[in-house]
């Protein structure tokens, strides 16, 4: 139906798509309602709500909203329709284009087919002609040749005619296409003009309807406003009246209440006055008692206060003293610390010093011991030499003296005999027989001999004494004091001396032997062997 309206020759251009007859409109309207009802029922079922309630709700929508909805719908429909109208032109053009393309393709295909057929048939004919050339060349008779050539010419002419016909056909088509193109161009320009017209019309319509709808909406709002205003005013009046009545009623009740309350108040006042007086008396008594108590408390408080103050003063004083003492003590402490530190330092210094001294002294001691030993040695040596010398001198001098004495004695004898005629008694001339020094005869004994005697003789104290002497003498051999007998200290018994000697022996002989041998090897040897062994060791000790 609508497609038919789109014929090319239509003067109004591509047709109005919606121009149904009244009948169809009615039918459509009826269908519309049915379908709408069906859809709505379906939807409501789907929502599962009471349809009546919805209706009620819908009616409550205010007039202005309704108006807005209506306007919106109207405008949307108008816009839609207008746009449709405008785009119809484009759609029609698209349809035309697709149709044209389809036709074009068809025509092209046909043309191509035709051309192919033509070329095929003409190719055959041409081949026929060319094949005849060969046979024509063979003809010798000119008449035959002329016939053949004529035939060829005719056929060629035919061929060319056909080609020309084809060419003219194609040119015709080209011309018709050009015309078509011009027509299409014109149509398109008409279309564009129509489009522009429709667009302008639509815009005008839209503007007009928008304005109209706007005024409608404004009116609706205005109406609504007035209605609201009047209804509100009425409500207000009603409310005011009700309010007034209410106020009056309230006032009356109020008055009644006021009277009632006054009565109550009076009653209460009387009651309260009585209560008040009784309570007042009670309270005054209480007050007096309390005041007395207060006075007492004040006195106690005062006393306590003074006591506390006194204590406080005492404590403060003590505190001060304490602080003073503390500070003093601290100072003392510091001082003592200082002293202590100084002493410590001094001690350390002294220790160091003494150590050094000790070291030097030990060194000195050692040195001196060495020297002493040397000295002793030299002394011994010199003693020996001196003794020898003394002996020699003594002998010499004794010889001399003896000589002189002999001379003298001789002289004396002579004198006596010759001169005096007396008998000569020879004096005691013991000294003439003396050889060697007189004093030291029994004193010189070596230390070793002495030690020997010590070891051998342990019973007699006399001999102990002697040995002690001898020991001492042995020790002091270096002293060139002739004839001096040193008395050893008597409190040392022979046994202890022996023990000492043994220890000495042990110590010097066996310094490398381990300490646990409490009894020295010497004592062991002594027990084991004859005393000579210890004596030997002693000798070693003394001469080492």
């Amino acid at each position, binding site marked *: 139906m609508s497609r038919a309206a789109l014929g090319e020759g239509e003067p109004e251009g591509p047709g109005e798509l919606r121009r149904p007859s009244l009948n169809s409109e009615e039918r*459509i309207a009826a269908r519309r309602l049915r379908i709408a009802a069906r859809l709505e029922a379906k939807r409501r079922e789907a929502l599962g709500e009471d349809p009546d309630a919805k209706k009620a709700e*819908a009616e409550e929508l205010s007039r202005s909203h309704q108006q807005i909805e209506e306007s919106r719908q109207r405008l949307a429909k108008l816009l839609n329709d207008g746009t449709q109208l405008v785009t119809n032109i484009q759609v029609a053009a698209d349809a035309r284009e*697709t149709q044209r393309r389809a036709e074009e393709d068809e025509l092209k295909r046909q043309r191509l087919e035709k051309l192919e057929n033509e070329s095929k048939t003409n190719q055959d004919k041409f081949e026929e002609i060319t094949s005849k050339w060969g046979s024509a060349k063979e003809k010798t008779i000119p008449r035959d040749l002329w016939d053949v050539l004529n035939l060829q010419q005719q056929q060629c002419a035919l061929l060319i005619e056909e080609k020309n016909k084809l060419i003219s056909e194609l040119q015709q088509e080209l011309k018709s296409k050009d015309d078509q193109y011009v027509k299409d161009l014109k149509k398109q320009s008409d279309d564009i003009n129509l489009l522009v017209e429709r667009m302008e019309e639509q815009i005008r319509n839209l503007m007009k309807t928008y304005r109209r709808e706007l005024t409608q909406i404004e009116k609706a709002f205005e109406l609504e406003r007035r209605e609201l205003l009047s209804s509100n005013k009425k409500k207000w009046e009603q409310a005011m009246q009700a309010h007034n009545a209410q106020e009056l009623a309230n006032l009356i009740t109020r008055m009644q209440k006021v009277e009632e309350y006054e009565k109550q108040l009076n009653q209460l006042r009387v009651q309260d006055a009585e209560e008040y007086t009784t309570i007042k008396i009670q309270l005054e008594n209480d007050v007096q008692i309390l005041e007395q108590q207060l006075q007492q408390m004040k006195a106690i408080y005062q006393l306590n206060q003074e006591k506390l103050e006194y204590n406080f003063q005492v404590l403060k004083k003590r505190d001060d003293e304490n602080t003073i003492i503390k500070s003093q003590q601290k100072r003392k402490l510091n001082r003592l610390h200082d002293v202590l530190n100084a002493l410590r330092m001094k001690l350390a210094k002294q220790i160091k010093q003494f150590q050094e001294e000790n070291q030097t002294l030990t060194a000195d001691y050692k040195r001196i011991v060495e020297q002493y030993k040397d000295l002793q040695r030299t002394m011994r040596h010199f003693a020996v030499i001196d003794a020898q010398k003394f002996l020699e001198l003594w002998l010499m001098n004794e010889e001399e003296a003896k000589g002189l004495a002999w001379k003298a004695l001789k002289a004396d004898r002579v004198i006596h005999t010759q001169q005096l005629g007396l008998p000569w008694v020879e004096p005691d001339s013991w000294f003439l027989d003396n050889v060697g020094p007189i004093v030291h005869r029994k004193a010189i004994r070596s230390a070793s001999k002495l030690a020997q005697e010590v070891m051998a003789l342990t019973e007699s104290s006399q001999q102990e004494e002697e040995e002690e002497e001898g020991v001492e003498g042995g020790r002091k051999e270096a002293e060139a004091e002739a004839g001096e007998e040193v008395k050893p200290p008597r409190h040392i018994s022979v046994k202890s001396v022996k023990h000492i000697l043994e220890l000495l022996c042990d110590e010097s002989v066996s310094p490398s032997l381990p300490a646990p041998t409490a009894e020295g090897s010497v004592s062991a040897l002594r027990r084991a062997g004859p005393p000579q062994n210890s004596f030997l060791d002693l000798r070693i000790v003394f001469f080492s």
Partner: protein
Amino acid sequence: MQEPVSGDTNMASPPLKTSVVNPAANPRRMRRIIAEDPEWSLAIVPHLSELCLQHIVSNFEKNPVVDRLLPEHQRKVLDRISTGLPLTVTANLISDEGYWKRCCTERWAVCDVSRYGGSWKRMFFERHLESILKYFIPNTTDPNQVLEVIPLCKEYVRKLEIDQFLPPVKLDQNKEEDDMSDSGSDVGVDEFCMHHYDLGVLTAALSHLEELHLTYGVKDCGMNFEWSLFDFTYQDCCSLANAFKKCHALKVFKLCRSKVDDEKTRVLIRNLLDHPCLVELDLSHNLIRDRGARAIGKLINRSKLEILNLCNNRIRAPGAQAIAHALGKNSTLTSLNLRINCIEDEGGQAIGHALLTNATLTSIHLGGNELSEPTATLFSQVLAQNTALTSINLACNHIGLDGGKQLLEGMSDNKTVTEFDLRLAEVGQESEYLINQALKANQEIARLKTLYQPNSLEEKSPDLD
């Protein structure tokens, strides 16, 4: 006192101008005369500041002083400087929209600033650059003309709509052949190469370029029409493809009515693959066939394309199948326009299958594609399952009554489609009407969803009637 002074106002417009906003507001300076011309002033000798400003305005070219002025003086200077000042002076100095508005309205009759993001400066520079490029004749015009303008306008140009590219002027045949050998192209068939302006330099320099609308054709050629004027040569295609590589901010690219065929499409697409921000591609009214469509299918999945317009090309069923195959795996494309191709039922069904799985496409236009009932059957399934589509256009196909009924069934299950165009699809008035009803219901749902987010059900019922 009043007359002689009013006589003065009737004389020639005084060059004396002081800006007095509301003289009555300041009683100290209030005059007894309040002229209707706000620029009229009693003072005969202008203020020194006025003279300075006049001097600045007249010598603006040599000594552009704007920044160091007070705002009110700045305003006056900007309102008065000539719109004919050279761009080298004004481009980077003046950013006042009023001045640029004056420049635009003086130069062009029709100015719709909303198409340029509300910025007059941007409009001026874009249209200026467009006009230079539109009248650029490749071997005649000095390329420096363009190169000079680039540094002045590169901050402001975001969109270029060049709807004509002039070919080089045909001189001697010999000369052209020399040129041809110089440029080193091997166009076998053409006698001379009509290479248009190479956009590579431009796109590399304009770093903010986001939209590019090109048409390789000539307007107003009148009786000098020749088919060769409308050629989009292979060389042009290659240089354009290279230009893409340098243009990193390109979001919208439209190349319409330029006789782009499969080969050229493939060259272009090769350089558009994985472009970081291309969002809209429009190759409508060209000569793209199935191979080109396959390349485009590949591009769909390897870029961020959201809007694809391929209307009025020569894509047939295989091409549509390639695009459908890409669509099935795609999740960025939102709008696909295959109007007036010839994809037929096979292609239509392939796209239907793709739509069963695709969940991002919202608008599809398959008008004028020789689709018929099988496609409609499949689409009814799509309607029942797909919840992303909102706008479908199957106008000018041969869907027929049965197809219409099937689509109606599908629509009854669908709650998201708000536009379904079935004009001239022979579906019958009843089906069309009922589908419209379903659409209206869906439109209500969509509207309410945007208005009242929490409760969308209660208000619906009074609207159904």
